[in-house]
């Protein structure tokens, strides 16, 4: 896993260095003479060979580094240093640290809503397989699955906020500062995220439950005289949980890397918005930082999912 992260730093670094954008030029200002450009390039450390640049970057992750060390105003970037945005004159780490909580709350709330609704609707659908309840749920799921998030988001904002004025216009505040405002802001983005993802979980859960309901051990559970609810949840659902856990872990991690469209629509300053902004500005250190952090979430989520397997399925446990 650590090796994977190391390779990741390497790939992001060199990939972004290959881009035909010259950071020195971008930060040079309007009147840019070749001499000024050269000075700028030295200030950014771009005059060093690529490998040295990478080593400086990599060292910065663990021990920190100093930019423009020989200029009158050196910029100290302490470990873990993800880089410095000369465009915004801010450390990448602090920009990400500001964005992560927003995305975290967005992802977590949406995740909880979609898991609860998705899985329970899936079970309900499986139990009424082929009847109108099942068809209705599957129909809704299909619609939810195919609607683009910007559409749901904009429709919600238009009606709930602008037309009916039920909620104030979303503006993010941390939950510990103003819980009510936090909820008012987050409820719509949560719904958008939940609608998109729940649809997939309805189908997944339904299929899993239908499959395990036909297993011999479910018949055994019935033969024991257990109540139908216990049979379905404790025996059938539990047996089909593995793929649901896998998908949920990875989806959550993916979301933590930023929900670009949802964040943009609701002007939530999270990872997604930060990523878009830095791409628009060609702010390479920020892009690299966001990529690295998002990828780390996914790798860590993978590890957690693997550990959860052992909790769910005792056959996976070793020793």
């Amino acid at each position, binding site marked *: 896993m650590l090796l994977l992260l190391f390779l990741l730093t390497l790939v992001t670094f060199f990939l972004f260095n290959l881009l035909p954008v010259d950071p020195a030029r971008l930060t040079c200002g309007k009147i840019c003479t070749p001499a000024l450009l050269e000075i700028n390039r030295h200030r950014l450390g771009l005059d060093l060979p690529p490998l040295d640049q990478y080593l400086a970057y990599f060292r910065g992750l663990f021990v920190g580094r100093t930019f423009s060390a020989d200029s009158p105003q050196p910029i100290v970037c302490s470990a873990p240093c993800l880089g410095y945005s000369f465009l915004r004159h801010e450390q990448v780490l602090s920009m990400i640290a500001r964005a992560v909580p927003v995305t975290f709350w967005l992802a977590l709330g949406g995740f909880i809503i979609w898991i609860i609704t998705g899985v329970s609707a899936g079970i309900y659908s499986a139990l009424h397989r082929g009847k109108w309840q099942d068809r209705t749920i599957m129909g809704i799921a299909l619609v939810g699955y195919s609607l683009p998030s910007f559409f749901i988001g904009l429709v919600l904002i238009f009606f709930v906020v602008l037309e009916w004025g039920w909620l104030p216009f979303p503006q993010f505040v941390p939950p510990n500062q103003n819980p009510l405002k936090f909820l008012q802001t987050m409820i719509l983005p949560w719904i958008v995220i939940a609608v998109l993802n729940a649809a997939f979980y309805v189908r997944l859960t339904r299929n899993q439950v239908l499959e395990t309901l036909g*297993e*011999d*051990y479910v*018949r*055994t*559970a*019935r*033969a*024991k*005289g*257990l*109540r*139908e609810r*216990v049979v379905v949840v404790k*025996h059938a659902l*539990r*047996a089909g949980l593995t793929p649901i856990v896998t998908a949920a872990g990875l989806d959550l991690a993916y979301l933590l890397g930023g929900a670009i469209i949802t964040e943009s629509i609701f002007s939530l300053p999270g990872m997604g918005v930060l990523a878009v902004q830095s791409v628009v500005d060609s702010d390479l250190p920020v892009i690299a930082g966001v990529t690295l952090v998002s990828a780390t979430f996914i790798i860590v989520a993978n590890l957690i999912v693997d550990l959860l397997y052992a909790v*769910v*399925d*005792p*056959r996976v446990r070793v020793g």
Partner: protein
Amino acid sequence: MIGRITRTVDRISTTATEERDFLTVKNLKVAFPTEDGLVQAVDDVSFAVEKGSTLAIVGESGSGKSVTAQAVMGLLDRRTAKVSGEIWLNNVELLGLPSSEMQAMRGDDLAMIFQDPMSSLHPFYRVGDQIVEAMRAHRKVKPKEAKREVVDMFKRVGIPAPERRVDAFPHQLSGGMRQRVMIAMALINSPDLLIADEPTTALDVTVQAQILELIQDLQKDFGTTVIVITHDLGIVADMADEVAVMYGARIVERGPTKTIFETPEMPYTLGLLSSIPRMDVEAGGRLLPIPGNPPSPIRLPKGCVFEPRCRYKAMTNGLSETVRPELLPTAGSPDHLVRCHLMPETRKRIAGEVLASLAEATKA
């Protein structure tokens, strides 16, 4: 429990005619509507079992024996299976019960052991917990007592180191051990009726004998009534007091085990008996298989279900092709019922010839 007693009393008053038989199945029919047509899995099956005795239901795959058992257990999905007839257990009619009452009886008054112990235990739960779950579905027990009871039951069914094994997961046990766990699970609430659906088919031959012996021992100790479903005539001879031979969704011959083995009359039963591999016949001797294949349950023959494969059908003057034979008592022994158009004397003569040739093969 109290609910069940009052219910039982109700039923007794309405059906005073029910005699000593503990389990009575009357005209049981099970059909599954499918896109290809109606699958008649069980057609007009009737039998009775005395308390504490063992009935064997014998037949090949698809003859309807497992479906009969599942109907008795109330395990058929009422949405997909059309079930009719009567099933009386202890003077309670099971098919008419609301599903919640049937659920309360399942695992308590009647329990079942399944064919494949590998897939019949939930892979994610400890075997001890799975049995405790069966206990707590029907009575209040403290977790500690429940566990002790499971350990005791494990000792009973011959699981070594029971204190450790209760905490094992199914995948950590061998096939024989798992079947013992299944038996322990079925017996934990001391059911009156135990249905064993091919309990040894998935097991090693050496383990088979142990499991059968165990079931018989426990039956004696608990006074349990047993229905064993099998295609293995060895098991029948070993365990059963009575035998019902099923073919093509119907019972074609029924009677005490001794009678069925010594004086069978239905040609299908004769065929079954002649097709057993025997130790006492010299190697290289040929088995006598029944020609042809079992009938499709979607299109059962109009007359006798066995007619298409019967060597003696010509002797019924075409009756077996058009008229459905009834399950009737044979002359002289009212316990022995046969569903066959052949004249009783003809049947006896044929049976005599077949058995004699079998005996001859044994000598040679």
